[in-house]
């Protein structure tokens, strides 16, 4: 005999549906971490390209600016969170970076340093309407 109790039927439907729902979190990074204490040792007017290479290694990008140049270092963190509610999927991706640009004169002495440390602000965020 089939039980027609609405509460029981709702509970049975929920129990059947729950295994079909799911969620996941993922974190990925690109390039090595840029230690702030190493970056702080790069001093305009004092440091050279050799010093920068010794502290941070090979740059991710080199841009020629006439006889001058600029090097980019970047460490990126991507965090992803998703929830699947049977018929509806919700997914959020947050990508943030730690980034350093070092500008050199024609003799490879450091002219300027620009820094941005935001990789730690990447967040797991499942979007809601």
């Amino acid at each position, binding site marked *: 005999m089939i039980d027609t109790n609405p509460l029981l039927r709702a509970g049975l439907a929920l129990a059947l549906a729950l295994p079909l729902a799911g969620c996941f979190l993922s974190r990925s990074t690109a390039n090595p971490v840029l230690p702030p204490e190493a970056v702080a040792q790069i001093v305009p007017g004092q440091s050279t390209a050799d010093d920068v290479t010794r502290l941070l290694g090979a740059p991710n990008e080199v841009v020629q600016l006439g006889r001058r140049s600029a090097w980019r270092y970047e460490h990126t963190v991507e965090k992803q969170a998703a929830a699947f509610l049977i*018929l509806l999927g919700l997914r959020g991706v947050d990508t943030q970076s730690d980034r350093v640009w070092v500008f050199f004169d024609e003799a490879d002495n450091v002219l300027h340093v620009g820094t941005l440390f935001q990789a730690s602000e990447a967040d797991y965020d499942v979007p809601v309407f």
Partner: protein
Amino acid sequence: MTCARTAAALAAALLGAACVDGDYNRSRVFQEPLPERVDALAVGTSDVSDALEHLGAPVHVIEVGLGLALAWGWADVTDWNIEVSAPIGDAQGNFRFTSTDTTTEGLVLFFGPDWRLTALRRGYLGDLLPRRQLPRDVEDELVD
């Protein structure tokens, strides 16, 4: 049976036989520089050092003529879509609706040969960025 009842029965029958699913996505990349820090820069007086100090490291550094451009970009994109499929006679009907709200914005600062700020532009980064070119030949260059 009235028209309304017929429509309701038809809709119920269609939904009963149909498969409906949807998804909602949000993607955030980097962050917008604080407006007060951008406002602290002045065309004609600020230089590359001031820009780096106020706004931090840009996303792009591009050679432009004898000068350069520094570009900051950020994006916050949301999109959602709904897909309905249902058997219609012997065929399988499929309906998909997609909505995308793209807000990829940017700020580009242009500097002259003396690396002093000559222009500040806001908008969509793709529209603002100068085309990348091969590095210029510096052998015959008089001004650098």
